[in-house]
């Protein structure tokens, strides 16, 4: 039984998102023996050592074959099992895109894909291991729920929630080891229901994944300049919590922040709501620019793509000054 104590939540944040996924895996399989876990030669990296040692019959390692990974999981889903698959997000999303389309989008089989190290967290390995594109790809496929947890506690909650719904899910894990915790005490998580983690009147920041923490920190810096900033954790990108977006319309500026391409991700999803609304404030999309930058450490690459909390704050401040002058 998982205990959402402040101490545990602190420990989980040190494990990083894969470690948190591994903890949730053991939890869900204890409650439902029909849940199975598959990976493509990244058992340890998926945080699944404990699961595979204690529940070997609920674990399959299909080797380095991501297309096969999705296909086998789909077949197991067809026979009534609930399969979770995990490998680097770059490989279990883009590499297996057609299998995801046919098995999960078209056939609607309830496979749960866990995209590890999405965004830039293994950026030291170069652009092959970046995953700036997965939301854009999967958002265009019908039926698939996309969840991007803000921290390790939310990764655990999202994994458990995914195991309970009879739908295909893409769970996008961002952030490195020592994932800074957004949440320090227990809270309610519901798929499709965004969470306002800070109220404010002048600007609304809608963020997802790793960028929720940076956005919250940037918001606090903006408050020091006398600007009141609301921060929304949009952990579910599809289906988008449209009401939560509309609730931001009473501010002067909407900012979206994501560790994903500025094309096709959270920013695009929010802009689809904004574009159809006559009373919306302007929106600015912050995310990964449309280019592959050279390999580097996670923090280095976040700086290169101008998404550290100071850079986020400065960009927001500049835009805010332009629209309010």
């Amino acid at each position, binding site marked *: 039984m998982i205990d959402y104590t402040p101490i545990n939540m602190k420990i989980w944040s040190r494990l990083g998102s894969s470690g948190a996924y591994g903890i949730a895996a053991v939890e869900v399989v204890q409650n439902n023996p029909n849940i199975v876990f598959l990976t493509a030669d990244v058992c340890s990296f998926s945080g699944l050592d404990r699961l595979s040692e204690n529940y070997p019959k609920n674990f399959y390692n299909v*080797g380095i074959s991501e297309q096969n990974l999705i296909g086998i999981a789909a077949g197991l889903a067809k026979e009534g099992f609930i399969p979770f698959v995990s490998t680097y997000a770059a490989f279990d999303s883009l590499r297996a895109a057609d299998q995801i389309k046919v098995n999960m989008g078209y*056939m609607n089989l309830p496979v749960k894909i866990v995209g590890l190290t999405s965004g830039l967290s293994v950026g030291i390995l170069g652009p092959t291991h970046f995953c700036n594109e997965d939301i854009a790809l999967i958002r265009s496929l019908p039926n698939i729920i996309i969840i991007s947890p803000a921290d390790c506690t939310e990764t655990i909650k999202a994994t458990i929630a995914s195991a309970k719904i009879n739908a295909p899910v893409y769970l996008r894990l961002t952030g490195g080891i020592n994932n800074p915790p957004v949440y320090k005490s227990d809270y309610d998580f519901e798929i499709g229901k965004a969470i306002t983690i800070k109220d404010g009147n002048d600007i609304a920041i809608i963020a997802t994944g790793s960028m929720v923490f940076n956005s919250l920190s940037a918001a606090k810096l903006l408050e020091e300049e006398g600007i009141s900033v609301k921060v929304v954790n949009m952990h579910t990108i599809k289906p988008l919590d449209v009401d939560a977006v509309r609730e931001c319309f009473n501010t002067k500026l909407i900012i979206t922040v994501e560790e994903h391409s500025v094309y096709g991700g959270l920013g695009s999803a929010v802009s689809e709501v904004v574009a159809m609304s006559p009373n919306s404030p302007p929106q600015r999309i912050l995310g990964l620019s449309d280019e592959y930058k050279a390999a580097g450490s996670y923090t280095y690459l976040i700086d290169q793509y101008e998404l550290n909390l100071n850079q986020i704050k400065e960009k927001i401040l500049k835009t805010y000054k332009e629209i309010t002058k």
Partner: protein
Amino acid sequence: MNDLRIISKRIRKDILLMGLNTGNQGSHLGGSLSLVEIMAVLYARVLNLEDFNSESRDRVILSKGHGVMAQYAAMKENNLLKEDLLTFKQDGSKLPAHPSLLHNLPGIEFATGSLGQGLSLGVGVALGLKRNNNDKSKVYVVLGDGECNEGSVWEAAMSAAHYKLDNLIVIVDKNGLQYDGKTDDVMSMGLLDKKFMAFGFKAVSVDGHNEEEILNALNIAHDNQPMAIIANTIKGKGVSFIENDKTWHNKRLTKEQYEQAIAEVELER
């Protein structure tokens, strides 16, 4: 075997009628006609499909989904399909050009059409059956030889042997032609039976238009390993002007051609 030959003949004629009825749209006649005897044997003699809701039913994955006319006709022949075959490929039809799940058609359990995906699905289904201690059902995956160009077929083959899936049977409709020409010219696959053996399957080659050979191959024991049956076939089998002609992969059949084709099928055997 005589009754099976009669069934095959009727399936072949139904395919031609469906092809005619698609008009200018055309249809995948070549790769459906090559599948006739395989489907006839499966549906008339092998598959347990009396109750589509029964857990003990067999599972069929037509990975080469474009051959679906042979599947629809074989299902119709065995009273497993209510739909009128003449609705094939019509707008809004429950019998589209590739097997689909959007129509909730009993007996069609997997959507295919994007080549190379069916065997991985079959591996997952076979694993699922074993997890459920279901030793009554088997999984039949029907591949094309051109389809075997897809690398994902071999990822799946590797894993079928790794998991010792003796409840999985692969049938390759080796008709020797793909869209752009002879498989040996487009992308030579070498010896498919040897390839499957090297991947850990038990494998045999049969005359894919001989019902008895197909049936015998389907009865071969394959303990602890999956089975591959390489069915040597002729694309467009049974119609002289369609046989071994790549242009009939997907093509319109005229009324005159239809009548000639039916006459040829009537005369055969």
